[in-house]
């Protein structure tokens, strides 16, 4: 496990990696001087809540952002913390016990929330699987990283945060669902462990999914996929702990789960646990047992899925199955005394619409589709565990956040902002707007769109087939009244359009 990924590098990738290493050394040496000088000045400084970044030029094309306070403040006892980033799939932001869901059981996620914070306003600017996953890794909007829909290949044109962490001494593992188009899995030789699958468009299967471990296809060791990939994660941690305590590197595990994605299948011990749950208290009134077909203008398609009510119950079962394995990770961290020095994050790649606005699934720029569950525990960073943050967070923020926590400079090409100030202080001001962008994805029936979401408004322009949307989210959080053609709408529109074009 400690050996680097066995996937052979192409001729060109060696040069790129080598260049990155040189860049890493340059950055490290330059920044050491810089950070040390700042340390002297600002050891007792309070974080500037408004503009915490300074742009630092380290020569041509090597600008990074460095926060203007001591790195040690955001690390645990001066050590680089361990990182566990857990990603769910199509997880509706309120389908968790800690979010007040009436029947789903998610004790693992609830535990992270109890010991950390829940971000109540977290979004994916491009609510589709592959673009969102590329965004988590690169910290960039889809128009920059290039994975625009589930057919657009991952090119590796941007460096992932895992590579930056690896260059800075982290033991890194990507385990689970990669799900980005391309010829098989990409080459990521910097990873210490790369476990994923390409089965069924990279969606994998809930049971007996063939895995690819460091480039070699192997059969699954456990029948259920969450158990399978969690085992790899636990083994990775165990191997890390087996090293000499003084010299072992911090680790970062990116653990991407399948649950939340159809066709929903839970293991025997969980399957059926919500059979008696009253789903009508969660699903909107217009939904009926055939409803999936209604949403897609096609009852036949709905019938192929079975009862919509049962689909929702099974969706919840898969999330509970995933949570069961999140509990295993948390228990292991407790047993090994790692919790105090490990940041644990749970997020979803997209939201999920279960009947609202006559829609099923992801893609649409409605709130239920773009909102993500986001829960984080980092005991040394969060002064008020068990609370919530209302600032807007995005999936583009994860990469810069984790880099900052690891003490690694944030590359300039990342669009996201580190959320560390918000972790540390609930009163820090958040962003006031973000871009929405989507490229049509055959065969789903959502046209390409571009939009802007502010704290009050959401404006979306569609490529074809639909009139633009303009919603006042404060007055109309359910997004029922389109203000586009109204006097009020016309008044606010120029400013919103201008904001949108500024991205």
């Amino acid at each position, binding site marked *: 496990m400690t050996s680097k990924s066995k996937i052979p590098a192409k001729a060109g990738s060696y040069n790129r990696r080598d260049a990155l290493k040189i860049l890493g050394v340059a950055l490290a040496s330059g920044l050491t001087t810089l950070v040390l000088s700042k340390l002297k000045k600002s050891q007792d400084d309070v974080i500037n809540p408004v503009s915490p970044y300074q742009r630092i030029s380290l020569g041509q094309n090597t600008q990074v952002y460095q926060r203007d306070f001591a790195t040690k403040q955001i690390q645990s006892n001066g050590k680089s913390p361990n990182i566990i980033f857990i990603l769910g799939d199509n997880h509706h932001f309120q389908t968790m016990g800690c979010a007040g869901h009436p029947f789903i059981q998610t004790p693992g996620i609830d535990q992270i929330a109890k010991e950390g914070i829940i971000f109540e306003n977290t979004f994916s600017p491009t609510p589709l699987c592959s673009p969102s996953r590329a965004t988590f890794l690169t910290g960039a909007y889809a128009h920059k990283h290039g994975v625009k829909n589930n057919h657009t290949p991952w090119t590796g044109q941007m460096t992932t945060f895992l590579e930056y962490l690896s260059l800075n001494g982290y033991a890194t593992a990507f385990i689970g669902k990669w799900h980005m188009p391309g010829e098989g899995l990409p080459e990521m030789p910097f990873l210490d462990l790369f476990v994923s699958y390409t089965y069924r468009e990279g969606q994998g299967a809930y049971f007996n999914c063939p895995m690819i471990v460091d480039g070699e296809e192997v059969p699954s060791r456990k029948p259920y996929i969450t158990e399978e990939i969690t085992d790899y994660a636990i083994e990775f941690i165990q191997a890390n702990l087996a090293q000499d305590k003084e010299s072992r590197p911090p680790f970062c595990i990116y653990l991407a789960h399948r649950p939340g994605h159809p066709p929903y299948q839970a293991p025997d011990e969980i399957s059926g646990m919500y059979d008696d749950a009253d789903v009508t208290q969660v699903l909107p009134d217009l939904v009926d047992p055939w409803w999936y077909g209604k949403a897609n203008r096609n009852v036949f398609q709905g019938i*192929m899925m079975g009862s919509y009510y049962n689909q929702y119950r099974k969706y919840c079962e898969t999330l509970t199955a995933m949570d069961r394995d999140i509990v295993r990770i948390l228990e292991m961290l407790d047993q090994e005394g790692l919790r105090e020095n490990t940041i644990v994050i749970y997020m979803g790649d997209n939201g999920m619409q279960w009947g609202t606005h006559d829609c099923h699934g992801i893609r649409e720029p409605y709130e239920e589709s773009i909102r993500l569950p986001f829960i984080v525990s980092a005991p040394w960073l969060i002064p008020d565990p068990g609370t919530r943050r209302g600032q807007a967070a995005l999936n583009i923020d994860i990469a810069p956040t984790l880099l900052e926590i690891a003490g690694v400079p944030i590359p300039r090409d990342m669009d996201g902002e580190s959320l560390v100030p918000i972790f540390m202080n609930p009163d820090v001001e958040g962003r006031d707007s973000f871009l929405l962008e989507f490229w049509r994805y055959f065969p789903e029936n959502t046209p390409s769109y571009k939009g802007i979401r502010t704290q009050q408004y959401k404006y979306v322009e569609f490529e074809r087939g639909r009139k633009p949307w303009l919603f006042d989210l404060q007055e109309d959080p359910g997004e029922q009244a389109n203000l586009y053609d109204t006097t009020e709408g016309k008044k606010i529109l120029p400013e919103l359009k201008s904001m949108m074009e500024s991205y």
Partner: protein
Amino acid sequence: MKNRGSQQRLWKPVIIVFIIALLSYMIYYGSRRIENQDIHQPLAALFGTIYFLAIFFGPLYIFTTNYVQEFSLGKRILTASAIPFLWMTKDVIVSMGSHPFLECLYWYLNPLSVWMVCLLAIEMGLGTILGRFLLKRRGQPIKVVSVGPVLSILIGAIAFGGIYAWGQGENLFSLYLDGYRLLFGSGI
């Protein structure tokens, strides 16, 4: 005149199934406007079921009826396929709201359509046997079961079940998307 009468008889079962499907579709979709859930839910359940039955099993009725009326195999296939084709076409038109025309045509090949074709094969085999059975009861000396319809049923059933067994249709969907990318790339 004789030809017109023949055409009317040929298309009459199609029109009957189409009207049933259209009415049930409208009532099913319209039922959502009823706020009283005690009314909305039963209406949706009833007319959703009828709509489904019309698309699914309408071809069996059409094929059987036209067999009894002794229309040719080509005409029986044409009329039995009409409702599923209209159903697929409706979705092709809907997808034009997001995608270019040529890509929308590719929708016709999606796994649901493939399943529907498998079902049609089963229904045409069954319709032939049912039609012969009805004709025999009317006194025609006819062999009810023969190799042709039985093969049609078997091939349709094996294909239908095989697609389901092969990853609940997900693997076929993957192939469908491979085909899309081959023809249209990422589409953007």
